[in-house]
């Protein structure tokens, strides 16, 4: 049986799944319910100076029939009295001594930081997370992402906190910055014990076409909010990787962003996270999704032979290279399995219009054919194909050669003029432009429309 428990910068938790600081961790009631359901930890909704919220607060990006592919909010930090939150933290810790309760904090002055750090320690928190990420509402007041975007300010505040903190301190970073490693290094310089990322991305998820206002709408007006949900995972993974690979960061990472299933969590872990935080998925489907996450993670670890979470952390990092270090001699081309092809011809149009005109249609069959000499191995056809394992990328090189752009640069063997023979595109055949005219039009006209056109012509 794999061991799911973790020790994240000194914070112990029965599994790596924590609820992120957000509406699901707004109250002791919710956190206890979550722990009861199987969550390993919770980062309490940010405590700080009193706020007032608006309605509505959430916006959604729906894709076809899928709701909340992306999600945003303009809600602020906890609007409940500090005393209530502290009392509830204490009660949760009393009932769940082995679960992780991390207090998220956001205040302004040094004295306020000192006071509130002591308050949450006294209440029994296992750790502290500094909210330097909130990209709406609080940043205009000089907090949240306003701090996360200024490494020196961030470092100073971390130092204030470290002056009094006796429990581990995590710095939560904003992705609204060009290089995430800058604030990560500042957090390390300030003495933080760990970082967590990403907070939400400044966003407008959509505009109401009738009211001419952005979502979410507050009395006919709106504001930019913080973006999260499945759609942000790729951004989060890249930033987690950047921090994990950077030699001057070297802090435990709590991965946040688009985690909805065990697979998402494993991806974060393989790129360097050693705990993961979830919010949108819990807001969408409830705390019950934790059962799928822990069982999937456990199954994966068993199959791969990982005994602990630490065995997995960062396992994909050695394979994440700079582009210049990729093998230019590696060559794949597409192959269509005719037995699996259903004849939708999405690969044909994708390659024809969106790639390299390397697929042709033949009369009498709906199964497209790869034109090998034109296939650059870009992979687009296999991505659009709706049938699993119908289009596969087959290796064409013999595996004996390996050459990278870096090596070519060092050997001074790179194209330098527009018509340099060593450039790749020069060797790729493309049809004459005029061959495009009328080509698809005829095909895409419905049967009868074609007939009328013929009568008319």
């Amino acid at each position, binding site marked *: 049986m794999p061991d799911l428990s973790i020790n994240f910068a000194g914070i112990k938790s029965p599994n790596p799944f924590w609820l992120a600081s957000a509406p699901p961790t707004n109250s002791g009631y919710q956190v206890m319910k979550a722990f009861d359901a199987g969550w390993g930890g919770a980062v309490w909704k940010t405590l700080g100076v009193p706020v007032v919220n608006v309605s509505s607060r959430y916006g959604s990006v729906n894709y*076809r029939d899928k709701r909340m592919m992306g999600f945003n909010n303009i809600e602020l930090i906890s609007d409940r009295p500090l005393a209530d939150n502290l009392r509830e933290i204490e009660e949760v810790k009393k009932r769940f001594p082995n679960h992780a309760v991390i207090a998220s904090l956001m205040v302004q002055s040094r004295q306020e930081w000192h006071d509130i750090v002591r308050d949450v320690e006294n209440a029994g928190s296992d750790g502290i997370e500094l909210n330097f990420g909130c990209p709406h509402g609080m940043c205009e007041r000089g907090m949240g992402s306003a701090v996360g975007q200024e490494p020196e300010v961030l470092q100073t505040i971390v130092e204030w906190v470290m002056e009094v903190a006796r429990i581990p301190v995590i710095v939560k970073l904003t992705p609204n910055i060009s290089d995430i490693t800058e604030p990560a290094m500042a957090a390390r310089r300030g003495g933080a014990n760990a970082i967590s990322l990403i907070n939400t991305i400044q966003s407008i998820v959509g505009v109401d076409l009738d009211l001419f206002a952005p979502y979410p709408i507050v009395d006919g007006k709106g504001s930019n909010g913080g973006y999260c949900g499945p759609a942000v995972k790729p951004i989060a993974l890249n930033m987690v990787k950047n921090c994990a690979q950077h030699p001057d960061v070297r802090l435990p990472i709590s991965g946040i962003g688009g985690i909805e299933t065990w697979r998402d969590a494993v991806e974060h872990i393989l790129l360097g996270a050693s705990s993961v935080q979830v919010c949108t998925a819990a807001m969408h489907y409830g705390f019950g999704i934790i059962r799928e996450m822990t069982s999937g993670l456990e199954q994966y670890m068993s199959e791969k032979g990982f005994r602990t979470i630490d065995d997995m952390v960062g396992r994909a990092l050695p394979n994440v290279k700079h582009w210049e270090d990729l093998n230019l001699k590696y060559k794949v081309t597409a192959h269509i399995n005719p037995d699996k092809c259903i004849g939708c011809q999405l690969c044909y149009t994708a390659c024809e219009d969106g790639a390299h005109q390397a697929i042709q249609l033949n009369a009498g069959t*709906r199964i497209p054919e790869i034109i090998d000499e034109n296939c650059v191995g870009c992979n687009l056809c296999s991505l659009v194909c709706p049938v699993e394992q119908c289009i596969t990328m087959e290796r064409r090189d013999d595996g004996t050669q390996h050459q990278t752009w870096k090596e070519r640069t060092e050997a001074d063997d790179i194209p330098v003029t527009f018509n340099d023979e060593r450039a790749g595109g020069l060797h790729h055949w493309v049809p004459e432009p005029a061959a495009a005219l009328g080509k698809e039009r005829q095909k*895409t006209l419905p049967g009868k429309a074609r007939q009328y056109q013929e009568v008319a012509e």
Partner: protein
Amino acid sequence: MAEYATPTTEQEFAGNFAQLKPLMSNSEALLESSRCLFCFDAPCIKACPSGIDIPLFIRQINSGNATGAARTIYEANYFGNACGKVCPTEVLCEGSCVYTATGAKPIEIGRLQSHATRQVMDQGKHLFQPGAATGFRVAVIGAGPAGISCACELRKLGHEVDVFEARSQPSGLTLYGVAPYKITNEETLAEMAYLEAQFGFQVHYNHAISTRPDLEKLEKEYSAIFLGIGLGHTSALGLPGEERENCVGAVEFIEQLRIRQEQTAVGRKVIVLGGGNTAMDAASESARLGAERVVLAYRRGKEEMGAYEFEYDLAKGVGVQGLFNVAPLEIVGNGKVEGVKFVRTATLNGQVQTVPGSEFVEACDMVIKATGQAKQTSFLGLIPELQVDGKGRIVFNPNTGQTTNPRYFAAGDAANGGAEVVNAAADGKAAAHGIHGFLTKS
């Protein structure tokens, strides 16, 4: 059997004849339209006799542009709403959906189609208007799918159109001949009203064109005449006893059902003669009207029936029993039908042969003959130079609808011998273009 109680009220009738393809809710339409792959040169378009750009309208529904979807549908087929419900989608668009090759359920194209068209109808959104007047007048005989489609397209092209309809309601077999579980009268008539409001053609109801003087008047007043007259009554079988009470034609039976609904009389034990789609309808309908036993008698084997497999499944599903390889010899009874005398048959080298000495009588109190409709050859004989082929079908140019009398055009069942609503709608529209070419080039 006896799955259905005899309906005595409108509600009971509606229950027994519940729609096979009910209208979708917006949520259903969103979910279903999300599944469409947007195939290139899509097989569903090719399988549609009216060539609707199906992937396009499905994507339009999915992106919240139901009006655009309806326009896409109506631009190809003026019976867009009806066809979504009455088309044999199982063998046309949906039958060709690439999903079937994956083992997944094909997209419910028919229901999506009706969903989009129903929205513009309900919202009274007009998508079309008549073209600039050309001064030409065209007479359309028959307000069925072929005639109405032809009329709409002619109006779009700017010609003045008068439709002459022998019955009191438009839409032909869509109203009088389609099984009520496929479409309701209300829906059929709503689409007709919707089209008429946009295109402004005149329909003269209860106005049969049946004599030579009728035709002469049209020939004098109109530049071209379109024949959308459909087929005639159920053909006689030529069997002894066919005149007995309760021996009826399927076409007439279904027409009664569409008009009188729950007041339609049906026997306790019904024998339906025939193996086509109309026979399946008549059998299903008898069962839904509360007949205790319905037997479908066909002179060949089950596999040789002309009906679509899903239509037979539908009939079986409501308890209809098949009786194969039997040929009727006589309708027996004393004034009223009391049974059918059959002889068993065998198929030898494709020929149906009777098995001597195998006669038997199957008792019943109603016989429905679904053995084909007569052609309107005597009426067609009134039109000079109009050629009719050996099967009684009007000879016409399939691209233009033009008959051998250049001023007469034809489409629909009278020309194709009997096909689907969608074929009539597509061909009626094509004929309008033929008429347009004839009028504007001559």
